[in-house]
């Protein structure tokens, strides 16, 4: 039992240079000494899908928050999401047109039956949905990581207790919780800091859903901690005199950050769809509060007459969920040290040509000489000085 160990981490391509005093090309190439974070960042930035998603999500958030403003700060869009106005186009159809010249018109996303501006409503809904998503993610992250870390590190009775609590949370039906929450604080009777309690519904919903959805993350983190606590660097830290909490948070946690971040982002994309679903069913965000799912719910009877009321809300749900998924995917790849981008044939051929042009040894194509031919002296390697045969 004393000599069996994990094989040491494989260097980039299987057999790394191991000589302490003779750094080879690869080692000197990586001489820059990038930190783990820098490596992950670089790999993430090279992930096209994730980068595009980051930009798109950023633009969506920027649009949503500047258009309608946050809290008391007004946005740049002329309409707001509650006031109604005269219906411009028949039936409130979108006013943007491709006819020369291209123009947005007054209500580019259209209007509903009482003349409320759909663009303003979608932007406000996007704001709320994004906020709920972030709150769910953050809550689940904090609770899940803490519970998972404690259970995985201490094992024993604490693990048993925490995992049974987790089991308890797994069986809580989210729809029921959403419904109860809506009922409790949806009523206009209370007020809090001068605002009716119902305007806190979105953050509250986020907190409560986050408080239910952390279970998967807790299980994963627990598994990760259980595996990592047996690693030698934990013993090594303990021998150096580190206490339990230091081991947990400075030694083990950074090593499981990949799992945590990836699962949190995936949870967030799941959360936005869940919030939408709850609101659509009438259990989540309710009028006068607004969210993308609630918009769809409110306009469900207008599907055949005013389809644009769906399109825009649906489009933003899809954009956000897809973006978050792609970002999670990119993070997963970036944190996985075994993920190596396989170069395209074109890239490799170009390097070959460069090499040939530089006068280095050319990469000869696999020669399929006839087997009957006896071995001859046709292929002397270039390094005549270094290669010596047994001279005896």
């Amino acid at each position: 039992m004393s000599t069996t160990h994990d094989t040491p981490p494989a260097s980039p391509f299987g057999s790394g240079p191991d000589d302490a005093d003779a750094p080879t090309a690869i080692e000197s190439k990586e001489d820059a000494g990038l930190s783990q974070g820098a490596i992950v960042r670089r790999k993430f930035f090279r992930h096209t899908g994730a980068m595009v998603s980051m930009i798109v999500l950023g633009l969506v958030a920027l649009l949503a928050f500047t258009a309608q403003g946050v809290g008391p700060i007004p946005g740049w869009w002329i309409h707001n999401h509650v006031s109604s106005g005269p219906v411009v186009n028949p039936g409130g159809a979108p006013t943007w047109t491709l006819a020369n010249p291209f123009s947005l018109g007054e209500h580019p996303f259209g209007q509903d039956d009482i003349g409320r501006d759909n663009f303003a409503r979608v932007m406000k809904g996007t704001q709320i949905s994004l906020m709920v998503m972030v709150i769910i993610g953050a809550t689940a992250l904090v609770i899940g990581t803490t519970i998972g870390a404690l259970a995985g590190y201490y094992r024993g009775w604490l693990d048993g207790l925490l995992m049974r609590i987790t089991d308890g949370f797994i069986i809580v039906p989210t729809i029921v919780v959403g419904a109860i929450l809506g009922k409790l604080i949806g009523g206009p009777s209370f007020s809090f800091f001068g605002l009716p309690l119902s305007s806190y519904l979105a953050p509250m919903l986020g907190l409560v859903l986050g408080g239910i959805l952390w279970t998967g993350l807790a299980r994963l983190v627990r598994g990760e901690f259980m595996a990592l606590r047996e690693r030698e660097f934990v013993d090594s830290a303990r021998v150096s005199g580190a206490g339990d909490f230091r081991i947990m948070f400075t030694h083990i946690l950074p090593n499981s950050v990949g799992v945590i971040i990836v699962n949190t982002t995936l949870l967030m994309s799941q959360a936005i769809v869940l919030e939408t679903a709850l609101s659509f069913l009438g259990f989540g965000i309710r009028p006068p509060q607004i969210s993308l799912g609630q918009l769809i719910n409110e306009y469900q009877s207008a599907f055949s007459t005013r389809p644009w009321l769906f399109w825009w809300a649906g489009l933003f749900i899809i954009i956000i969920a897809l973006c978050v998924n792609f970002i999670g995917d990119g993070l997963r790849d970036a944190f996985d040290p075994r993920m190596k981008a396989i170069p395209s044939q074109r890239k490799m051929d170009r390097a070959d040509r460069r090499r040939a042009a530089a006068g280095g040894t050319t990469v000869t194509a696999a020669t399929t000489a006839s087997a009957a031919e006896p071995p001859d002296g046709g292929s002397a390697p270039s390094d005549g000085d270094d290669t010596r045969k047994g001279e005896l």
Partner: protein
Amino acid sequence: MSQDEQPTGGPGQTDPAGHADSAGRTATAKEPILSVKDLSVRFWVGDEWFTAAEGLTYDLHPGEVLAIVGESGSGKSQSSMSLMGLLPRNGRASGSARLGHRELVGLAEERMQRVRGNEISVIFQEPMTALNPVYTVGFQIVETLRVHTVMGPKQAKQEALRLMRLVEIPDPEDRFNAFPHQLSGGQRQRIMIAQALACQPKLLIADEPTTALDVTVQAEILKLMRELREKVDAGIILITHDMGVVADMADRILVMKQGRVVEEGTAQQIFSAPQHPYTRQLLDAVPHLGSRAGEPGATAFGSSGQDVELEYVDDLAAIPLESNDTYEHPGGRIETDHTALRLAGATIEYPAIGRRKAFRAAHSIDLAIAPGEVVGLVGESGSGKTTIGRAAVGLIPVVEGSLTVGGIEVAGKKNKDLRELRKTVGFVFQDPGSSLNPRLPIGESIGEPLALHEKLKGPELSRRVEQMLESVQLPTSMRNRYPHELSGGQRQRIGIARALTLKPSLLIADEPTSALDVSVQAKVLTLFRDLQEQYGFACLFISHDLAVVEMVASRIAVMRHGHLLEIGPSSDLVAQPRHPYTQHLLAAVPVPDPVEQRRRREARDALLEATEGGLAS
């Protein structure tokens, strides 16, 4: 064997092509089964091609063992894997390699699959990871047979049993239904070999076949492979960094350095008159038994200077092999009250987890280390040597007896109460790759004990860290690097630096060099000795390699199955082992010299027979 005496290259030939020519002539009797010409392997790293091996040219004849020697990263494994098309996806081979009449380089994947296992097979380094843990070993051999040949299940089982007998597995009928984890390391490696031989391959690639094994098991596997070479008419490529193993097996040797062949010749030539400085460096790096020459009676047990027969018989009369009592050589104990480490009747148990019962890994051990003294602790895996090291720093509880470090009792203390102790004990782990936190820059890893115990911060901490890096001969600029950016040798230096930051009075070194290449090991050992002189710490040096321990330790203790069997001054114990088990260990250590190794091998066989005879009588 057949090529042993034949000259493979005339004097003055510097051109490999000329060599290929002469090899072609000598082999007119037998066609080479494999002829490799100008084989190169490249990898796509970052944005360019990195050459892992270049211009490899050699022939392999049936029944011949060709050893490819070099450090990790020299391209020896990758060039051989390229023969089977088993390169990673970013690798590419060029040149030519012909197996019989078939060109292997650039062979289509479907046709390569038929070649693999059928005509070429591989014995991997780590049998535990190369065997599938969810299938029985018998099933895995049968599978290989039935994939490549038309064979009914019953017939395949018979054939598998025959193969298992061929590799000398005890009770093959029983073992057929065993899972890999139920077998010992040596038996697993035998199963791997049986599987590799299943389809009577023409070429067998043994990739470090014994590196993961204990010395005694290694000796058995090498013996088996030697015998097999005569039974099956296959060419063997032996890839290793251990010159001792090479001396035991090889007919011809290729020495590789950084992707190029630097020297080639018969085993005799390479060992007796190495030409290239790198070859000499490799040979010098191998720790020799009896290296403490100059001291009286410093010849190692079983080496040429001794009357072998007499010693064995004499000793067998003294102690039976199964004895668990401790034999003390004169001077084996230290007579002082002031000790760096003292175990008095210490019994150590791995605590019970869930349904698993507590496991007693060390039985009432008595051992003491004086301040400034280096004591070696030797044994096979599972002997409990690591357990003692871990118990000394409080990672495993001592259940009976006492264990004191510099006068402080460790037994019965909790993790919290051991903080004081941890200032005085350093621990060097076996595998530097896993004992350094992969997400922490090495500067922080080294500085952690200082920050925790001496509450150092900022420039003061920074200065101390740089000082430690200098003392292990690493550039201070490395402090911002991460462990995975360092080579194995550099990482182990970091491990040592970290253990020494608090200037401990006792250092526990748990197989600090077993994960390293031989030449890197030599450098690390030299560094270790220098540091020991400089800092003057006492050290418990744990290793399975007697030759390494003998280099650094003044006294050696031998362990088996949790019992201390023998203890004595290094030169004394190596020259005149008393316990038969110690003799077995010593006899199994390969030496980098074919003639001497053959002699030792015969002596070892004689010893084993004598012991068995002794037990029977």
